[in-house]
């Protein structure tokens, strides 16, 4: 009798169904699932696109590799008349112009970031920071025109003669002061990547806790000593990260560089000489390649550019990892 009552109260169908029905009615995670698969699809889609692109470039450039072999990488000769194609001078041009840009841009960008974040009063820092970031919004063709008509003549009349007079004995500063050339490309690229590096560096500095700065000040550090100890040292890995981003832009920059580097497929130690980058040779010749082999060789240049970017990025990432590991202190 009692058990019957208990059964009726707790285990009757009506009750259990009443409770369970609304719970089981529909899958509340449906939206989650859709969202998950959408994002997963997008992520893999990007990877697939990358692989497809590499595959296609490999296929298109294969004739060049099979015909030219290793000489493609070891030769600096690029001559559509004799059908000789070597990528070496372009690798040289890309790497040197980008390194030059980084060498010019890093001290300026870090200095700008330090000034805006740590020294300038806020009424000045805001508009100044905005203007510097505006530099990133200028199209590269405009940079190229400015480089060709303003920067190159400036270098030719004011900078290169002085360098020749005082450092002419140094192999980096020899040859005719033409304005356009490796130096011009480096300076122009430096201006182009400065906003990227300084904006990222500012974020890095902003993330450094006040307690580090106060630790330095509390020990009797002057402002500069505090910046060195608490800001620059702590921000090292972040600054390197910012430089990688800037370097990435410099390596691939095409239009502006093509307009000011002089476009000569030769390797010269002097920064006054003209050069050619992997991106600029593509811009110059891809539309008007004479032979199938030249077209394949140009595609192979594109592939090489991709590989060089990949290698430099990997090295930079390794450095960041190494620095961060040093901070955390692997026991």
């Amino acid at each position: 009798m009692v058990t019957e009552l208990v059964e009726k109260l707790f285990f009757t169908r009506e009750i259990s169904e009443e409770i369970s029905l609304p719970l089981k009615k529909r899958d509340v995670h449906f939206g989650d699932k859709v969202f998950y698969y959408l994002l997963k699809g997008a992520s893999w889609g990007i990877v697939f696109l990358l692989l497809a692109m590499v595959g296609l470039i490999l296929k298109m450039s294969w004739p060049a590799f099979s015909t030219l072999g290793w000489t493609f990488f070891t030769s600096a000769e690029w001559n559509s008349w004799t059908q000789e194609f070597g990528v070496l001078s372009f690798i040289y041009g890309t790497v040197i112009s980008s390194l030059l840009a980084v060498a010019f841009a890093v001290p300026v960008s870090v200095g700008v970031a330090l000034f805006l974040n740590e020294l300038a009063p806020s009424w000045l820092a805001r508009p100044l920071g905005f203007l510097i970031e505006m530099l990133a919004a200028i199209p590269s063709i405009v940079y190229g025109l400015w480089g060709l008509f303003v920067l190159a003549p400036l270098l030719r009349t004011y900078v290169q003669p002085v360098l020749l007079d005082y450092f002419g004995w140094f192999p980096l500063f020899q040859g005719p002061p033409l304005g356009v050339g490796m130096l011009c490309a480096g300076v122009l690229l430096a201006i182009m990547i400065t906003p990227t590096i300084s904006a990222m560096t500012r974020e890095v500095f902003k993330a450094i806790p006040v307690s580090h700065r106060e630790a330095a000040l509390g020990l009797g550090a002057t402002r500069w000593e505090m910046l060195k100890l608490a800001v620059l040292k702590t921000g090292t890995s972040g600054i390197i990260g910012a430089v990688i981003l800037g370097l990435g832009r410099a390596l691939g920059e095409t239009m502006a560089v093509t307009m000011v580097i002089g476009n000569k497929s030769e390797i010269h130690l002097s920064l006054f000489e003209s050069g050619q980058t992997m991106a600029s040779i593509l811009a110059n010749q891809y539309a008007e390649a004479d032979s199938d082999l030249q077209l394949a060789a140009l595609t192979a240049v594109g592939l090489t550019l991709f590989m060089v970017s990949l290698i430099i990025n990997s090295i930079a990432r390794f450095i960041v990892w190494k620095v961060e590991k040093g901070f955390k202190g692997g026991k």
Partner: protein
Amino acid sequence: MDGEVLKVEKLNAYFNDFHAVKDVDLSVNYHEVVALIGPSGCGKSTFIRCLNRLHEEVPGARCTGNVWLDGQNIYGKGVDPVVVRRNVGMVFQKPNPFPGLSIFDNVAVGLRLAGVTKKSVLSEAVEEALRKSALWTEVKDKLKKPGTGLSGGQQQRLCIARALAVKPPVILMDEPTSALDPISTAKIEELIVELKNDVTVVIVTHNMQQASRISGRTAFFLLGELIEYGKTSKIFTKPQNLKTEQYITGRFG
């Protein structure tokens, strides 16, 4: 030495319009541990940050009044705050060793700022400071390792060593154990009591047992005012002021 190492006269501190410390007079003797207690926001941290002129580094912050350190007014005309801070050490709430610096370099940094470059002088001073902060045996084999790799309690003792290395007459501590576990806290309290022989310690604490365990005199702050200052044993057993009594018996705060 005897007598007063710190003498504060009519100290007022502000954050923009907010009056954080009001007309505080207080003096501290050599080889004394003085605890500052009071509810959060009562101005005790601001007060000690005025004692090494760190307060003025916060945008919008300023203060008035006189603070005599060893007979010299640190707010006097032409006094460089950098020099003041080299003579008044500070330990903060959260352990803040410099990332990217080794244990050795973290302790040596104050000396290096003061211009010491000789390796032998540095390593001697670093060892002495680490011994005094009871960290030497734990780190002597890994002085080259980063300071940030230590545990929280060790990091805080490293910061104490960093402050001790330059041998300042006064060390300020702003709730140095509030981020630490009880064992690390006990170690640091023990350390502070031992440090009395070398330096004067002014310590802000929220832990009243801590104040009674380590300090000779205690100051009670409330809403920016110094309510009562006297022997710790007296403050905790027979406070003169009703507000002090209410606070230490836990009726507010």
